[in-house]
């Protein structure tokens, strides 16, 4: 599966792809900035939980996370979103990230309350892991890669 594309100054960029893993599943997400890569990675993770296309962007939920380093920050950001899905019952159809600094991320998710009947849920995610975790930049493209325990 390949996620939606996003054009932002310089053509379209694939947002994410699913990585194969025998027991689990991962996302490799792309962005022209670290912020875009974080947002795309979150969208990729949501796509593993439900059909993101079935979510209406009715409400905006602010999401913040802090951590000691950039890769840890990516794991924390995704953990925060997972918590909102599992505990507060959110279904997100997209994400925007305002700023990623060395130890802090600020952004929001667009979505609505989770309705398993309408949102075509495919399964739960237990956690983002540090296994094969990657956050890097090459020739202006940021790559955020995370394997999830499902």
């Amino acid at each position, binding site marked *: 599966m390949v996620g939606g594309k996003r054009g932002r100054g310089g053509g379209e960029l694939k947002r994410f792809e699913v990585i*194969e893993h025998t027991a689990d599943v991962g996302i490799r997400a792309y962005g022209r900035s670290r912020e875009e890569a974080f947002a795309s990675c979150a969208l990729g993770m949501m796509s593993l939980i439900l059909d993101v296309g079935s979510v209406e962007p009715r409400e905006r939920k602010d999401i913040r996370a802090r951590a000691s380093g950039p890769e840890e920050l990516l794991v924390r950001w995704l953990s925060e979103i997972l918590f909102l899905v599992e505990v507060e019952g959110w279904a997100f159809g997209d994400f925007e990230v305002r700023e990623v600094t060395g130890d802090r991320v600020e952004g929001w998710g667009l979505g609505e309350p989770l309705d398993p009947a309408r949102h*075509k849920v*495919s399964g739960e995610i237990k*956690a983002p*892991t540090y*296994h*094969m975790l990657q956050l890097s930049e090459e020739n202006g493209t940021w790559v955020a890669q995370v394997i999830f*325990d499902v």
Partner: protein
Amino acid sequence: MRRKGVRSVGFLDKVRQVDEYMWEIPAEAQEGMRVPGIVFADREILEKADGDNALQQVANVACLPGIVKASLAMPDIHWGYGFPIGGVAATLVEGGVVSPGGVGYDISCGVRLVLTSLTWEEAKEKLPELLDLLNTSVPKGLGTKGRLHLERGEVERLMSKGAPELVARGIGWEEDLEAMEEQGCYPGADPSKVSERAFARGKDQVGTLGSGNHFLEIQVVEETRPPADKLGLFEGQLVVMVHSGSRGLGHQICTDYIEVMGASLKKYGYSLPDRQLVCAPVESREGRDYLAAMACAANFAMCNREAITHWIRECFEKVFRAGARNLGMHVLYDISHNLAKMEEHVVDGKRLTLMVHRKGATRAFPGSRPEVPAKYADTGQPVIIPGDMGSHSYVLVGTREALEKSFGSTCHGAGRTMSRKAAKKQVRGEELKRRLERMGIMVRAAQLSGLAEEAPEAYKDVRAVVEICEGAGISRRVARMRPVAVMKG
């Protein structure tokens, strides 16, 4: 199949065959290995594990400080993170480490078998009604909450006191406790070591099945061998298998303590080949805190499976219009696949107290061990091995040989052989449901796409895995069951 981001490291060249089912990765195979790796497998499984990088993971685990004897892998080995799935490692309690990655995210994920006195012939006409009732009575899937509405203090008591606390509330039977590891209460649990976040994720999930590979399955005992009768198993018998874990509570505890131990690695001067292997000395503050939180998750998981058992008994009572006791609905045993336990083992003639990590592996003790319930003293501890939805499951018993070879451990299931993405590509949920129904297996699933991920072809042949365990002597087959109804989250 070439996978992005994955490459085989060709560990096979470094492996030495010890006997028909035992392979050794010598400690010289990789820098930093403190002990050799031992894999129980046949050549086919070994090659697959190498392609998966799981052999590399066996070698990585051998680098853990304080590891004794060997880094082990059971025949259901496949790629995990940090530890392979099917990995077993024992570390010294004094001078060794505990690693949350050696337990996994779903702490005390496990399986139990509930017996009945019903035969398939007696029950088959009522099966559709029973499955429909179970499907609406046992909560499953994302966004569902448990049927128990517990106050915070009540959940904390379940975490610290385990299944006996639930039984005291009238959920489950007193006799069930004897059929659980640690009699339903893992020692040392301390809810103050569990984060608010973990508490929030788990508090409404007691008595929920979850999704992914978790299931409730009605099976018929097809073949038995001695001492099946001593375990209460007979051919033609209807039994119920439950596979579930500690839900969001355990997942968050693992997440939290991987972070805690990641931050303390430098303090203890550890350098590890994989970040998912983060660990801390068993006797450090971080190690003790993790074990206290892990015990909370283990108790939560046992309560979870006990509550599900209670709903199952209620459904049987309604459908068969008889009491669950009259229907013989005893728990054979409740085992965990993902746990670290303090155990005594003899290594090189010396009796040692060890922290035995089992990740996707099952304890398989002989009856002589004090941990085994008295009623299984003659038979050995029952080991319950689920297959995939389309194939058989097994009951095995632990052996003396397992104590010598694998710290009393055996496999935990078939083990995946195909990624979820590949499975979904090959199999459509609707088709799979029809195929299973043609095989005489009724299916209820929260999501059909989730069902496809768990297709039988995504798993190893469970029979081969069990045969290797038996061939290697680390457990013994007692019964084989075929599925007749499956409920998936």
